[in-house]
């Protein structure tokens, strides 16, 4: 069983999260979704009805509802119709891989070594068969996407191959380097949270 917390999420996020969990199940099973309003329960019910899932909902309070979705063997085939039957697990090439870089150094220890390792990590990233969908830079990581960064060429290479390069705007402001961003785009906490929560795999070097 997979539990999904969609408290505080506006529609369609509860449904989107439930769909992701159902994909993760990869077949028959149960997904439990916690939501904070009845309309979200009704929108989940519409999906359950269309997809032939069993559904039970339980009102805990006016602002808390438990919805249980039962995905049967037969229903699973229609529920995850966009995934070929032989690989109900999402193929790696379609997975959303997000790399979150929160420092300009890799690991704890000697700073100089950490900087060398980070440069090596980003270079190695460019050489992978399966590239990440997004690379997020925040806090000290914001120093890697600006002018003078030793990883700039590698990051431009990644961007040219379709990888989203996103740097936290608050962090650029804090380090006073907003005007020096040299690759990718500026992002905000809302987008960062969305990228991280909707990723199939988060990599933190």
């Amino acid at each position, binding site marked *: 069983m997979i539990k999904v917390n969609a408290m505080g999420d*506006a*529609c*369609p*996020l509860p*449904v*989107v999260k439930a*769909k992701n969990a159902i994909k993760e199940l990869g077949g028959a099973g149960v997904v439990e979704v916690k939501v904070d*309003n009845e*309309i*979200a329960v*009704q*929108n989940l019910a*519409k*999906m359950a009805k*269309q997809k032939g899932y069993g559904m039970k909902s339980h009102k805990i309070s006016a602002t808390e509802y438990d919805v249980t979705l039962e995905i049967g063997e037969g229903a699973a085939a229609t529920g995850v119709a966009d995934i070929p039957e032989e690989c109900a697990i999402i193929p790696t090439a379609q997975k959303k891989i997000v790399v979150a870089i929160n420092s300009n150094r890799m690991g704890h220890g000697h700073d100089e070594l950490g900087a060398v390792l980070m440069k090596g990590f980003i270079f190695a990233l460019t050489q992978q068969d399966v590239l990440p969908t997004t690379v997020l830079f925040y806090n000290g990581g914001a120093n890697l996407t600006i002018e003078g960064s030793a990883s700039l060429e590698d990051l431009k290479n990644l961007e040219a191959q379709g990888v989203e390069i996103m740097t936290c*705007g*608050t962090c*650029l*402001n804090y380090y006073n380097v*907003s*005007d020096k*961003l040299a690759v990718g785009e*500026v*992002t*905000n*906490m*809302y987008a960062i949270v*969305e990228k991280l929560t*909707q990723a199939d795999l988060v990599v933190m070097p």
Partner: protein
Amino acid sequence: MEEKIVFCKGGGCTAKLGPGVLSRVLSMLPKGNPDPKLLIGFDSADDAAVYQVADDVAVIQTLDFFPPMVDDPYTFGQIAATNSLSDIYAMGGEVKTAMNIVCFPQSWDLNILGAIMQGGAEKVIEAGGVLVGGHSINDVDVKYGLSVMGLAHPSKIYANNGGHVGDKLVLTKKLGIGIVCTAHRVGEASKEAMDEAIKSMTTLNKYAAEACAKYDVHACTDVTGFSFLGHLHEMVDGKLSCKVYADQIPIIPEAVDYADEFLLTAAGQRNRNNTIQHVKFDEDISFAMQEILFDPQTSGGLLVALPADQAEQLVADIKALGLPGAIVGEMIEPADKEIYVTNLNK
């Protein structure tokens, strides 16, 4: 480079309070003495208030504002203004003056506010109106819109519930705006679909209204937050019934796919809850089409009832303007249900 706005949290007309909640509050307000010069107030669920000031002049007054539904502030300003101005056109009036209504976090970059208001001001000018002032509040979230004043001849005012049996219903914009914006918010909408939605939301209903003015319009409303069926329910007003030809309704094609992926708004479900008891869907009306008919529209098109023999010519005139227009239904004698949704071509 400043941090971009945290702007779009799923706003537009999806942010409206549900009509159920609203009518409960409105019904409890003290009414005061009736004023015979007030031609249309909120009793008839109309888009704007109309007050007669002389034999041949009535003032139309309206206010509309909402949170952003797109990421770009300038585009948001255009959409919010287009939506606010639309209420004047839905009443058959001409736009005269407009005032900004703004909520904006003071700590943010003021250029963002500038871009919003520039987008709005340009639409007021396009509408032939004058921007004359406004009011701003420091708030945690952005909201923007206009209070608009327009004029019309009292005998030319379009009520939203004046349809006759046999009238055809004409719609002047595509449906599916809310679903496409919602899909966009979770990163699932194609660029083409979102571009089409933005183009539609920034197109003034002025042009469609000018086309309608040549015909004997019996009823008119603009399709916004309460969805096509919700506004049609207000138009039918318990006095008539109507048929809706689902397969004739212009829609943004991708909206069907996104509806099938359940990228649906809470407002759409509230619309369904509030209107479903008046509606009968034929069995061959798909789930996606039902959702599109309940989808809240931001800055949607005009929905017009007019004599059957004039409808095709009106549609031709609207299409000649490069706008999507179609005959989407007809008024019939009162029946069990108010709205029967069917496909014209089985």
